[in-house]
């Protein structure tokens, strides 16, 4: 279980996050929503080690993550995607995913130099793992395509495949539906559900309410760097503070 306690991030005088606390139950799909500038991506960056929080702590299965480097956090089974499309641009889809499989490989420097026979077996295993992940996101026909040459929607799927290849237990998705067409969003929603069925926990930041309300078990609403509401999608949609935060209103909720 991921537990965020009193997480605070300040950039100089600007407070991006102010004592944010929430938990993500194992096997759930949890969405973080909020207006632009609410601190959603900042929270992601602080959880995954890309940003050093000014205060508070993040634990996963009671082990502290705060202060660890992103790669060390990935090794503990927490893998993220990025808001801006983020692939290895010059590499083929297959090589993108093979790179994502980094932690599943074991070959060290000297074993590689010695050209051990078991390395070839490991490479074959990795290649078949990569093929499985590529098929899972539905890019089987694009295996050899260079990532940067793919249409935007497919690049986002590559990104998802790279993250899944790293075998996360907790997958953090930063706006997986951003900039996608309606049908592409449906595909992504379906993929997120199937990812959860495979036993992964998913935490996502998303603006598209159809995605959020359609797949989430729990929705957390951030505004002005604080959690203003948390609950099931139906309860959140009716929550007065949330409506005020999104639509504006007389009371100074923000």
């Amino acid at each position, binding site marked *: 279980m991921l537990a965020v306690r009193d997480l605070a991030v300040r950039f100089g005088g600007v407070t991006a996050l102010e004592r944010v606390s929430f938990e993500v139950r194992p096997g759930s799909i949890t969405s973080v929503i909020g207006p632009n500038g609410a601190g959603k991506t900042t929270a992601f960056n602080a959880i*995954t080690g*890309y940003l050093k929080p000014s205060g508070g702590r993040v634990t996963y299965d009671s082990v502290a993550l705060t202060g660890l*480097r*992103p*790669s*060390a956090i*990935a*090794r503990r089974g927490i*893998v*993220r*995607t*990025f808001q801006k499309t*983020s*692939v*290895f*641009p*010059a*590499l*083929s889809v297959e*090589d993108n995913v*093979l*790179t*994502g*499989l*980094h*932690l599943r*490989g074991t*070959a060290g*420097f000297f074993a*590689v*130099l010695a*050209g051990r026979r078991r*390395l070839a077996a490991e*490479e074959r295993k*990795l290649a078949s793992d990569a093929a499985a992940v590529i098929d899972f996101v539905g890019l089987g026909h694009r295996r*050899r395509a*260079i990532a940067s040459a793919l249409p935007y929607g497919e690049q986002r799927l590559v*990104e998802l495949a*790279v*993250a899944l*290849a*790293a075998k996360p237990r907790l997958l953090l998705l930063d706006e997986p539906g951003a900039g996608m067409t309606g049908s592409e969003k449906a595909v992504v929603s379906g993929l997120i559900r199937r990812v959860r069925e495979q036993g992964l926990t998913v935490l996502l930041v998303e603006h598209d309410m159809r995605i959020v309300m359609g797949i989430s078990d729990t929705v957390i609403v951030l505004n002005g760097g604080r959690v203003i509401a948390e609950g099931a999608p139906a309860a959140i949609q009716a929550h007065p503070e949330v409506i005020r935060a999104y639509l504006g209103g007389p009371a100074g909720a923000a």
Partner: protein
Amino acid sequence: MTRGGGVILAAAALALPFWLQSPYHLHVAIMAGIFGVLAMSLNLLLGYTGQLSLGHAAFFGIGAYTSALLTLKLDWSFWPALGVAVALAALAGFFIGRLALKLRGAYFVLVTISFAGVISLVSVNWIELTNGPLGLPGVPAPALGPWSLRSKTAYYYLVLTAVGLSYLVCRRLVRSRIGRALVALRENEPLAESVGVDVTHYLVLAAVVSAAMAGLGGSLYAHYTRFVSPEVFLFTYTVTMVIMVVAGGKGTLAGPLVGAVLFTVLPEALRAAASWQWQMLVYGVLLVLLVFFLPHGIVPWLAGAMPRLAGTVSASPAPPPPDAPPARG
């Protein structure tokens, strides 16, 4: 490069001394081989991790001086001196790698330039050890058991072995998960970290292997020219290496070798053909044209052109080139 092509090239390289009768031509071949090792070394950093080391001559020079000093002052034989030269260069690479972790891009370039500058100053001023600007003459030629490798033909095969070993090291690294991690750092460092690629580990590893190979080149150079002076740290050496890597095709396995051969042979050919003012002019113009028309380098261009040419003959869909630009090769 295809397997068949590689075998043919290797056979041609092995047979070279039999049809290069002139010692001068053999000398050019030896220098091309030494620069081949250096260019492959630089390519590991520049082509695969994407970090430009403009102080690469420092590792080359450390290798050259270490080997020369150990054989001259301590009467070591060539082989252990070579080993220590490689190890010391690797150690320097380790420190540069650690230092460079916080710095990328232009700052990394500056650190490497400064490092080469400092080492060069030491070689000029630590006269008791290095004999200062006068350099160290009389570096002994290596021997293999009872056989001296003093002859150009023998030395050619020694250098060729080093080229082969360096190529093998690069190839095994590049085609492993380690190579994928290096390329991942070049392509998208935050994403690489997010899937568990340890930046510290892999950048330092690349710097160490790269520096070790440059040290190997330095030691081979010292025992070939039999003379080492602070000139080994000249910026020209680094620039030549960069030109070779970029022109040949950075981030490909064969590129640095192609670049090394071309840019060792070209100045010599020009020297035979024109007066010195024209040499530099032609060299410069050729370089500009090459970079302008083949921005990814010769090898990626060939890899892209060959399936196209083959396609016009056989009309069958060509397989994607294994050394396709600018992916890992």
